[in-house]
């Protein structure tokens, strides 16, 4: 079976350095005394702990949940007691701490599996997706994208691409998985195809892993599923990038603004597929992973299956690390990995490699020289960008030019920096510029929102003012009308006559004290109520003015009674 393959755009050929870590079979790491399990191992909202400090948990027991497929469930990697739920240093490129559940191992490693679903070919898609979600399976190739979320696409999918390229130098965790667990992997492909409703699998493996290719091909022949195509691809970095592998296997480019599902393709890393398979067939959640330990500062480079939450130091010791030789600790490979300085950080679901090189092996970056625009970076760029131009724009802070030169299509693979003869850390410039532009966009959005809020407030105030003015005008109008009406009725009356009448009315008012008395009563009632309120508030506040206030109330009550009396006397 020969499948056509296509050429990767750009690419570089760094020394592979994979043989060191494939000399030994996959070892099992010891269960550490204490595990630190971060709630943010995946891309998406952090998981929510559902256990309490002091609670006993079993291996595989769910300890944190997620509301949607965008999140990920987290499980106890071994049985023991929850020691703490708090922020701990996190094994992450950001270097930011993360909420973590600390478990003290009881040494029993006592399992609590989910019910096995051996009849998965009869299960419907939603059931399987839910299980993959609840088993906490996330992309184990490095990105940590929740697997269920990716598999739950609503677009029609015809092809599953299995990513066994593992193009980063040094890393061999996928290679060892393919070599040692090939049969399980072929079954995982069938499971993934079933979940996706895909009709074929393109299984890409770089040609620098002959043992893995042989094992996979043998397992494939044994299973005899002709929907699965094992495709051996040439070794070139970054062939294992998702867009790159799809290009190599299908010749299609994932649109810049879209996803592979737009092409009817979903890609899964081999380790992710196996984790999903084990979650379904054995009810085992994702609590461990195969990690490559390599680099010249390790006496026994190898692959180790480690529990999530195991401190790096435990694995490093198992691989015989010579601290005095270690120059840096890289999580991931030499092209895209990040350095850590704390050996107590935990292994996470995405820790595919711990690389501990000596200074001679990976020397520190030499000082950058001038860019001579040689264009070697552009030759290496898998996204067909012009890194040398982006570099000038980045240095000049020309955001619009960076965007028109498609900075955001940069996958940060580092091929440009690798090939730059002047040692310019190009990727660093792009990362910084991307962050600046994102910040600028956020700022602009915020400014726009503030502006809109301000304008809305101004409009509201103006409206209120206008309403008030209108009301005032209406009142003035009404008053004027009344005045006019009064004037029209009064204008016929002679002013002198009116004055005489008013004087007469004043004289007679003495004879009509009833109205005065009524007014007086109303006034007194008002004052009495006010005094009573004052008294009540003084009481509740515990004021020392209670006595005079009480006196005033009494006096007013008396006056009111007298006034009522008087009014009553004069009918």
């Amino acid at each position, binding site marked *: 079976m020969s499948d056509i393959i296509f050429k990767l755009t750009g690419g570089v050929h760094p020394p592979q350095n994979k043989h060191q870590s494939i000399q030994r079979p996959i070892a099992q790491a010891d269960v550490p005394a204490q595990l630190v399990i971060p709630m943010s191992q995946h891309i998406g909202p952090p998981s929510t702990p559902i256990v309490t400090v002091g609670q006993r948990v079993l291996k595989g027991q769910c300890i944190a949940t997620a509301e949607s497929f965008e999140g990920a469930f987290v499980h106890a990697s071994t049985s023991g007691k929850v020691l703490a739920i708090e922020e701990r240093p996190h094994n992450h490129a950001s270097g930011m701490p993360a909420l973590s559940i600390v478990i003290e191992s009881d040494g029993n490693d006592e399992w609590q599996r989910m019910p096995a679903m051996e009849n998965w070919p009869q299960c419907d898609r939603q059931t399987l997706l839910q299980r993959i979600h609840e088993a906490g399976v996330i992309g184990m190739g490095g990105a940590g994208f929740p697997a269920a979320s990716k598999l739950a696409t609503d677009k029609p999918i015809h092809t599953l691409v299995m990513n066994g390229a593992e193009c980063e130098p040094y890393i061999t965790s996928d290679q060892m998985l393919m070599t040692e667990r090939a049969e399980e992997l072929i079954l995982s492909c069938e499971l993934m195809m079933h979940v996706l409703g895909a009709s074929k699998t393109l299984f890409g493996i770089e040609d620098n892993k002959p043992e893995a290719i042989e094992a996979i091909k043998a397992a494939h022949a044994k299973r005899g599923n002709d929907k699965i195509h094992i495709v051996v691809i040439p070794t070139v970095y970054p062939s294992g990038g998702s867009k790159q592998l799809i290009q190599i296997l299908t010749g299609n480019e994932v649109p810049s603004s879209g996803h592979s599902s737009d092409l009817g393709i979903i890609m899964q890393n081999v380790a992710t597929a196996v984790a999903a398979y084990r979650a379904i067939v054995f009810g085992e959640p994702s609590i461990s992973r195969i990690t490559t330990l390599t680099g010249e500062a390790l006496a026994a480079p190898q692959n180790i299956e480690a529990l999530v939450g195991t401190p790096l130091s435990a694995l490093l010791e198992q691989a015989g690390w010579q601290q005095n030789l270690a120059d840096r600790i890289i999580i991931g490979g030499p092209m895209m990995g990040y350095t850590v300085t704390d050996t107590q950080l935990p292994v996470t679901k995405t820790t595919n490699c711990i690389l501990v090189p000596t200074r001679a092996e990976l020397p520190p970056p030499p000082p950058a*020289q001038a860019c001579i625009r040689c264009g070697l970076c552009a030759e290496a760029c898998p996204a067909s960008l012009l890194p040398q131009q982006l570099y000038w724009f980045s240095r000049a802070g020309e955001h619009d030019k960076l965007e028109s030169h498609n900075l955001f299509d940069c996958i940060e693979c580092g091929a440009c920096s690798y090939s730059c003869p002047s040692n310019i850390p190009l990727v660093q410039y792009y990362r910084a510029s991307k962050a600046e532009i994102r910040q600028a966009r956020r700022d602009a959005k915020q400014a726009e929102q503030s502006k809109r809020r301000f304008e809305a407030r101004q409009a509201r105030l103006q409206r209120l003012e206008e309403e008030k003015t209108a009301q005032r005008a209406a009142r003035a109008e009404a008053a004027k009308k009344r005045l006019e009406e009064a004037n029209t009725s009064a204008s016929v009356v002679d002013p002198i006559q009116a004055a005489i009448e008013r004087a007469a009315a004043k004289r007679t008012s003495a004879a009509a004290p009833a109205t005065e008395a009524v007014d007086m009563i109303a006034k007194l009632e008002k004052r009495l109520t006010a005094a009573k309120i004052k008294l009540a508030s003084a009481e509740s506040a515990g004021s020392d003015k209670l006595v005079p206030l009480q006196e005033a109330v009494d006096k007013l009550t008396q006056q009111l009674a007298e006034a009522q009396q008087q009014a009553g006397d004069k009918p």
Partner: protein
Amino acid sequence: MSLLNVTSPHAHGQLSTAKVMQLVVLATLPGIAALVGVFGAGVLINLVIAAVASLACEAAILSLRGRPVSFYLQDFSALVTAVLLAISLPPYAPWWVVVIGAVFAIGVAKQLYGGLGYNPFNPAMAAYVVLLISLPVQMTQWGAPFAAQPMGLAEAMASNILQHVDAVTSATPLDALKQGIDTLSGATGHIGGYGWEWVNAGFLLGGLFLMWRGIFSWHAPVSMLAALAAMAFLFPNDALSRVDSILFHLFSGASMFGAFFIITDPVSSATTHRGKLIFGGLIGALVYSIRHWGNYPDAVAFAVMLLNLAAPFIDQYTQPRTFGHGGTPS
């Protein structure tokens, strides 16, 4: 022990800018050997004078600018400029012509613009043009190819530095072509200009070596030579058949030197593939136009400088299609 905390990538390729420059110098050797074989040892004297003057000038200006001198001298770029300039000059040009050229190339054309990577013009070509315009007599005195008594190193030194011996000069084949049919006999060799065909073959060889080593892509040189050939075919001189015209122009003057060592200077040329095709093609067409219709017998330096100016503009309009942006090939 403290662990290093740096960003990726942690691995780095083997190629360095200094190595690129060294390879370019290395690749000029066949051409230089041909120059020595055809014109005698004069070019070697020029090389030494140009190298000393260039490096001294570079060091002086770097220290004036407060830059780390040895760090920048180690990039070998000043040496490359010196070599390219020395090759361009007549082999028996007086020493001060070479010094003026080197100082102008490094001091003005390179360092005044900000040093390596910032110069809009190819420094060697800028200096060559300045010398050609300012000192036309000294700059057009090329020795006769394969002289009966070729100059040795001592005589060349005497001629260039002490100016004791008057070098025998003659018109170059391109001069002869310009002057007319009568003078052409004796100016043509097997395929190109008499003697010059060897020089061009030497630079072609060196250029192919650099291309094989991946120092530059094929786009600019092939485009320039193709354009030059096309123009020579379309508008041949009366003295030459169309096919002879093509070979004569490809293997005379600075054709190969320009195509492989001048227009491939990354700093001052277009950087995109399509841009390089346009850049090289226009230079080829301009070279022929000036040779055929213009006043100067050769024109590589002028053509290169004109297109140096256009390079940023060409780059702006020849951006390659970014991955995932439309036109997905299937």
